[in-house]
C-alpha cells in the first residue's frame, strides 16, 4: 500500500516536472530572454529593487515588446560583491542562455562582469548602474556597453562651481573605495586646474560610525569641506562635525545629499542651505521628459520611492537603449549580433535627464546637473538645479593626453595640496 502510494507520488512529480519543461520550451520560442542583474541582498538591496523598477518601466513603455518579440527578463541578484555578480551573470548566460545581459549595479561588480564578458564574445553585455571608471577605460571589452556616465563624470563642473562660491581651500572626507576615488577625481580635475587647493584628504572605511579623528584633523583656515560619503555615513559625519563646533559650508558627492541628509534635524540644518552637489540627474529637473518620467514612476509603483532614485534612472536608460536598438534591427541577433551592436553604437535618444549616447569605448557621454540645497515653500529642503553641464566625456573635459597624464582616480591621484 505504502509502496503504491510512493510510486504514484513519484510519478506525479516526474510528470509535473516534464510538463513544466515542455511549457518552458514552448514559451521560449516566441520570447526573447534578457538577463537583468541588480542587488536584492547586501548593502544595496533597496536601491537594487529600484533598479528593477527602472528596467520594468522601460519595458512597460514598449508594452513588453521589442524587435517584434516578447521580452522576458531573467531577474538575478547579487550582494554587491564581484564574485556573486559574476556567478549570477554566468548562470544567466550559460544556464538560461540569454543573448543580452543587463547589469550589474555597483562599480567593482561592473569590472568583474566586464572581464567575464570577454570570455563570451557572442553575448552582448549592457551595464546596469555601475560607475567605475576602469570598466571602460582600462582594457575594455568589445561587447560591454555602458549608456550611463560614471562617477567621475558626475562631478564635472562642481569644481568650478565651488570656486565660484569662493571656496579656494577645501578639506576632503570620502569613503575608501573605487566609487569615491572617481568622484573625487571628477571634482578635483577642474578644481585643481583652476587654482583650488585640497589641503588634505581623509579616506574612511565604508560604514564608519566614529569621525572624531577626522573632525580633529580639519584645519581652521579652510573655506569648505568636501564630503563624498553615502547615506548614513554622511549624516553621522554631519552630526559629529556639528558637535565639535564645525561651521564650514559643505560640498557633496553625487550620493551624499540625499533624502536622509535633507531630512537632517540637527541644529545646523539651516546651514545645509546652499550645499552644492552634482550628479547625472536631480529630483527637480524642469523638463517635460523628466516630469513625465517621475509621473510614470509614481503611477506604476505605489510601493516605490517618492521620486525615482539614481538607480531606477540608470537602469531605465540602459534598458531603454537595449530595447530601442532591438527595435532598430527588428530583433535580429544573428551574425554574432553584429547588426545589433552597430545599432547600440548609434544609440542617441533624449532620456529623462538629457541625451543618451556613447563614445568609442562604449561609455556614456551625458549631462551633469549641479544642484544646491534650497528651501521649498512648505519648509522642506530639496536639491535645486542651478546649472547643467552637457556632453561630458570620460576625459572630464580635459584633452585625452592631459587625462592620460593624470591617470585614473585613486587615494593620491589627483593631488593639489599646495
Amino acid at each position: 500500500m505504502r509502496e503504491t502510494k510512493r510510486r504514484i507520488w513519484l510519478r506525479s512529480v516526474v510528470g509535473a516536472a516534464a510538463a513544466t519543461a515542455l511549457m518552458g520550451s514552448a514559451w521560449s520560442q516566441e520570447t526573447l530572454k534578457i538577463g537583468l542583474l541588480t542587488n536584492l541582498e547586501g548593502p544595496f538591496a533597496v536601491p537594487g529593487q529600484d533598479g528593477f523598477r527602472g528596467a520594468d518601466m522601460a519595458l512597460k513603455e514598449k508594452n513588453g515588446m521589442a524587435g517584434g518579440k516578447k521580452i522576458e527578463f531573467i531577474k538575478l541578484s547579487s550582494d554587491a560583491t564581484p564574485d556573486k555578480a559574476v556567478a549570477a551573470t554566468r548562470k544567466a548566460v550559460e544556464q538560461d542562455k540569454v543573448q543580452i545581459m543587463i547589469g550589474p549595479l555597483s562599480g567593482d561588480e561592473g569590472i568583474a562582469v566586464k572581464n567575464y564578458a570577454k570570455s563570451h564574445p557572442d553575448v552582448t553585455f549592457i551595464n546596469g548602474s555601475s560607475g567605475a571608471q576602469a570598466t571602460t577605460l582600462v582594457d575594455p571589452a568589445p561587447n560591454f556597453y555602458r549608456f550611463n556616465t560614471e562617477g567621475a563624470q558626475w562631478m564635472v563642473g562642481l569644481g568650478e562651481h565651488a570656486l565660484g562660491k569662493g571656496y579656494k581651500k577645501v578639506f576632503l572626507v570620502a569613503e575608501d573605495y573605487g566609487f569615491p576615488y572617481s568622484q573625487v577625481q571628477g571634482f578635483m580635475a577642474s578644481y585643481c586646474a583652476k587654482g583650488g587647493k585640497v589641503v588634505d584628504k581623509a579616506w574612511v572605511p565604508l560604514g564608519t560610525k566614529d569621525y572624531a579623528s577626522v573632525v580633529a584633523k580639519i584645519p581652521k583656515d579652510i573655506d569648505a569641506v568636501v564630503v563624498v560619503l553615502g547615506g548614513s555615513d554622511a549624516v553621522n559625519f554631519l552630526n559629529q562635525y556639528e558637535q565639535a563646533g564645525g561651521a564650514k559650508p559643505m560640498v557633496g558627492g553625487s550620493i551624499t545629499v540625499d533624502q536622509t541628509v535633507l531630512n537632517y534635524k540637527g541644529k545646523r540644518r539651516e546651514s545645509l542651505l546652499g550645499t552644492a552637489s552634482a550628479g547625472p540627474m536631480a529630483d527637480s529637473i524642469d523638463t517635460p521628459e523628466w516630469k513625465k518620467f517621475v509621473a510614470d514612476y509614481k503611477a506604476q509603483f505605489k510601493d516605490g520611492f517618492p521620486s525615482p532614485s539614481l538607480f531606477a534612472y540608470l537602469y531605465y536608460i540602459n534598458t531603454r537603449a537595449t530595447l530601442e536598438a532591438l527595435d532598430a534591427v527588428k530583433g535580429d541577433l544573428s551574425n554574432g549580433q553584429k547588426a545589433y551592436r552597430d545599432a547600440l553604437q548609434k544609440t542617441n535618444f533624449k532620456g529623462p535627464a538629457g541625451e543618451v549616447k556613447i563614445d568609442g569605448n562604449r561609455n556614456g557621454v551625458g549631462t551633469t546637473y549641479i544642484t544646491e540645497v534650497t528651501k521649498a515653500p512648505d519648509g522642506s529642503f530639496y536639491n535645486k538645479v542651478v546649472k547643467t553641464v552637457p556632453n561630458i566625456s570620460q576625459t572630464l573635459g580635459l584633452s585625452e593626453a592631459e587625462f592620460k597624464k593624470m591617470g585614473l582616480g585613486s587615494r593620491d591621484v589627483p593631488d593639489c595640496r599646495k
Partner: protein
Amino acid sequence: MSAAQWRRAMNSAAAAAAPTVRAPAARSVQALPSSAAETVPSWPGRWLARIRPRHIVVLAALIVYPFVASPFFTYQIGAQALALGLIALSLTFLGGYGGMVSLAQMTIAGVAGYGVAVFGTSSAAAISLGWPWWLASAVAIALATAFAAAVGWLSVRTEGIYTIMITLAIGVAFFYLAQQNYTVFNGFQGFNRAGAPEVLGTESRDPVAFYFTALACALAGYFLVRHLVRAPFGIALQGIRDNPRRMASLGYAVTAHRVAAYAVSGLLAAVGGVLMVWYNGRISPGTVNLGAMISILIIAVLGGMKHPIGAFVGAIVYVLLQNFAIDLFVRERFNLVIGAGFLAIVLFSPDGLLGLWAKLRSSLVKTQTPQQTRRQP
C-alpha cells in the same frame, strides 16, 4: 562516527596500538598518517575490503558527471560545491571530531587565497610577486596552515561559545585588515585576475579541467579525514572531544593535540581557499566577510557533521539553492526560500541531511526487511 563504530575502533586501537599509548603524546601529534600504518601494517588491504558497490557508483558518477553535464553545471555547481565542500570539511573535522566549532575556517581559506594572489600573479602588478603558480600556492597553503595553528593555539584553551567568539573575532579582524590595508591586501578592491595556473587559462578556465582538479583535491581531503579519524591521532582527538580531563590524565597533551587538529583542518581549508581563488579568478575582502564565514558553518551543519561526506552534501545543496532559489519563488524574496530550506533541515534533522537520510533508511529497512540490521553509514 557512531557510538558502535567508536567502540570498535577504540578496542582495536587499544589492542593493536599498545605501544602508541605508551609513547609520548607529542609523537602521535607529529606523525599523523604514518602512525596508522604502523599499527595495522596491511592498511591498503583494509581499505580495499571496505569498498562497497555504492562507493564505486558514487566515484563513477563523479567522473562521468562533467561529460554529461553542461559547462555551467560542471563549473559553477560541481566544481564550486567541491571547493566549498573542502572548506566545510575542515570545519566538520574540527567540529565533528574535535568538538571545536571554529568560524575562522573561511578566514584561513582566505589567507591561502590572498597568498596565491600576492605571491603569484594578478592585475595588481605592484603587489603581486609573480612566482610560478605551484610555488605560490604551496607557500600560500603552508602559510595558511601555520596561521590555522596560530588560531588554534589562541582558541583551544576555550570551550563552546567562547571558541566561536574568539574565532569570530579573528575572522572579522582579518576582514577589516584586508579591507583597509593597501600595501599587502590591496584594500577594498582586492586582486583581479589572480593566480589561476596557466594550464587552466585565466578568463576562459576550462570547466572540465578545473572540475577534476577540484575533485582530486576534494577526494584527497575526504580520504585524509576518513583515514585520520580512524588513526590513533583521530581516536585520541575524539577522546579529547568527549572527555579532555580523562585524556589528559592518560598522558595526552590535550592542548598540543587540539592545536594539531587545527593545523590539519587549516591544511584542508587552505587547499579549498586556493581552489576558490582559481575558481573566481579573484579575491577581495568580500570573499572573507562575515556572511562567507557563516556560510561555511551553514554548509557543514546542513550536510551533517557526523561524517565527512556531509560537508560535500551540504555544499551541493547550498550551491544549488544559491543558484536556483531565485527561479523558484517571488524573485524579490528568494532569500526566504534559502532561509526556510535551512531552517526546515535543521529543525527536522539536527544531524543535517545525513541524519535525514539515516532516518529515512532505517524506516525503510524496518518496513521492508525487519531482520536485516542497519549498516553503518
